[in-house]
C-alpha cells in the first residue's frame, strides 16, 4: 500500500507544473502506469481523491493510461508482449529478456478548465 505516497508525489508534480492561480481549474490528471509498475490504479485513484480534497486542486481527478508489458529477447531480438510474471521468449526460449515497456510511472499532463468562473 504505497499508493498514498505515489499520490502525494503526483500532487507535488502537478503543483509544480500548474500556475497557482489555475490550481482550481485542474481537471484530468493523466498518469501513465505500466502493468508491472506495482501500483494499483483503483487505490491510486482513491488516494489522490482523498489528498486533493482540502487543496485548491480539489476538482482534479485521475485519468489512467495503462501500458502493457513489452519484452525484447536479447537472444533472437523478438519483441513480444507478456501477461505473466515470468518472461520467456516464445520463439527461442533462451537468452536474456529485457522489459522495454510496462514499468512506467509518470505524470503525462493535466487538463485545465478554461471557462471563466470555473465549472458551470
Amino acid at each position: 500500500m504505497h499508493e498514498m505516497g505515489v499520490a502525494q508525489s503526483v500532487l507535488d508534480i502537478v503543483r509544480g507544473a500548474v500556475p497557482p492561480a489555475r490550481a482550481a481549474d485542474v481537471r484530468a490528471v493523466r498518469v501513465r502506469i505500466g502493468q508491472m509498475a506495482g501500483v494499483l490504479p483503483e487505490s491510486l485513484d482513491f488516494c489522490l481523491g482523498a489528498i486533493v480534497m482540502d487543496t485548491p486542486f480539489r476538482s482534479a481527478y485521475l485519468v489512467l493510461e495503462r501500458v502493457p508489458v513489452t519484452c525484447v529477447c536479447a537472444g533472437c531480438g523478438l519483441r513480444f508482449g507478456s501477461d505473466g510474471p515470468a518472461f520467456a521468449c516464445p520463439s527461442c526460449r533462451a537468452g536474456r529478456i529485457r522489459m522495454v515497456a510496462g514499468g512506467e510511472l509518470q505524470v503525462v499532463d493535466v487538463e485545465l478548465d478554461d471557462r471563466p468562473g470555473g465549472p458551470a
Partner: protein
Amino acid sequence: MSVITIERKILEKNDAIAAQNRERFARHELFALNIVSSPGAGKTSLLERTLERLKDRLRIAIVEGDVQTDFDARRVARYGVPVVQIVTNGGCHLEAQLVQDAIDAVDLGGIDLLVIENVGNLVCPANYDLGEALKVVVLSTTEGDDKPLKYPGIFRHASVLVINKTDLLPYVPCDLDAMKRHALDVNPALLVFETSCTTGDGLAAWCDWLAGEVARVRA
C-alpha cells in the same frame, strides 16, 4: 480545456535522492545492500549470522527499517556495530530520503559495508531505489515455492536471492528446485544462495560472496 504537458516520472524525487546516496557511498568506497523480504523470512537473522562471521573482517554499519519498534536494531546492536533504526510509523517501505537522514548519523568514512534492512514487504520496496549497490531478496522455504511468480517485481529488481530456512525443508511443502526455477524464470541473472540461520548451512558461501563484493568496491 487547455492542456499542460508534464511528462515526469512520479518517483523522480526519490530517484534523485537515491542518486545522492549512491554518490556518497561511492565517495566513501563502501558497499551498500538493500535487503528485502516478506515479514519473518529471516532478514534480521541472516544479518545476525553475517555479523557473527564478518564483523571482525569488515567494518559494518546497519540501517534498520521497521513499521514499529526498535527490536531489530537492538538485536543487531549486540554485535557491537553502529545501528540506526528508522521507524516508518505505518509506512510500508523505506524511501531514499529516510535513508539519507539515517546515514547522517553514520561515519561513512569508517565503514566498508552498509546493510539497509528494509521493512518486511515483498511488494512496495521494489519501486524505491535507496542508492544501494544491489538489492538482496530473502525468501524462506515456509513461504512456498510460488512466491517469485506471485511477487515478480521484487525478484526482477533484485540481484541476489537468499533462500532461507533450508533446515525446515523436510517439514514444509516447498519444492526447492521449483522455487529456484520460478525465481530464475522471473530474473535469469539472479545469484542464488541457500541458507539456514539455525544450522549455519550455506552461510559461509553467502559471507564469502559478500566479503568479495566489498573487496571489489574498495580495490
